[in-house]
């Protein structure tokens, strides 16, 4: 789970950067389309994460 959560943060960062890049006026169309595909893939993975990730509690008592 912890691994997935790390992926959430990095995927969200990548997605937001990618959107900013695509909104740049000078973006190359081939690069924009590649980013678009990557963006859609990230959105799918993020949605999957939101659906499936669960919290895990470990309880401890200090001696």
């Amino acid at each position, binding site marked *: 789970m912890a691994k997935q959560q790390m992926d959430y943060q990095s995927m969200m960062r990548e997605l937001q950067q990618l959107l900013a890049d695509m909104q740049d006026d000078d973006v190359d169309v081939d690069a924009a389309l590649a980013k678009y595909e990557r963006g859609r893939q990230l959105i799918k993975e993020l949605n999957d994460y939101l659906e499936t990730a669960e919290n*895990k509690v470990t309880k401890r008592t200090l001696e």
Partner: protein
Amino acid sequence: MPENLLGDVVLGVGDFVALVNQTFEFAYPSVTIRGELANFRVSKNKWVYFDLKDERATVRFFGTVFQLHGPLEDGMLLRVRGTPKLHPQYGFSVNVQSLQPEGEGTIKRAAELLQAKLEAEGLFALERKRLLPYPPRRIGLITSTESAAYADFIKILDARWGGVDIQCVDVQVQGEAAPAQIAAALEYLNQLAEPPEVLVITRGGGSAEDLYTFSTEQVTRAVAASRVPTLVAIGHEIDISLAELAADQRASTPSNAAELLVPDRKEVHQQLQHIEQRLHEAALGAIKSRNQDLKHMRAQLDQAAETVLRHARDSVASYDLLLHALDPYAIMKRGYAVVRLNGKVIVKRTTVRSGAIVNVEVSDGRFDAQVQ
């Protein structure tokens, strides 16, 4: 009549003191006394002397500064646990094991005094506040796992978000042992090989006495000293505890703490939809702008082709004129003829003998002729 155990035995003074102390240890190993603080003084920054009094009596106490939860002043109402002792030289006193302020007024005053002291040290300074990771991957939770606060926090966290690794340390959140347990839990979570990204210390509401733990010097300093950012959520609205002031962030209730820590997955779903829409628009925008470029290039290409064609046409026309000028038939029309002998054009007189039959071509046909 109770039996007199000593009968007529005569004791030395030291023996009497030892006997009294043995009796205290057996009968009252620990007593808890409530009273008003008087004659409070600290010696050599280490020893603490004070009296507790009520309308009928005054008792002396002796302890160390490490047992204090913050500054004290005469007139405060205290509850002190300790062991009664008869000192060989200084007489009777109670050796302090623990002490706590009692009553809302005293607790408030004790918190004020401590707040002023710690404020002067800069413990509550805004520039010390750190941002909490959002959302965190690992949370250290310090609370009583039997409490409603724990249940509320986990319930709201689960409802909003997933994938968080929660290391929960079960502690008492009120009473004598609470400050030391909370401080130890803070230290424990801080020193983990992979420490949490945020520490949450929480409990529900309660009386001033119940919440006093969170305004003790030990807990406040431990929160301020945490290397991992802290969120303190104590379920009350009126007075803010000192631990909350020392924390990087505070929340009003355990549920509110969970709300501040993680986003709601429903909102993130919506945000993702919005991003997808913007991605789509950005991709279309890029294609549209490329289409404009192509149209522009096409126009430039058409223009260039036109120019090339025009030049070619001009060139062809001038060749046509030249060709026309050099056309032998045009010359024949002006009266010239081509003479051939056996199909070869005669350009010199010496190449034909007299009597030879040659073929003569003029502008509208051919005929044979004999050379003389």
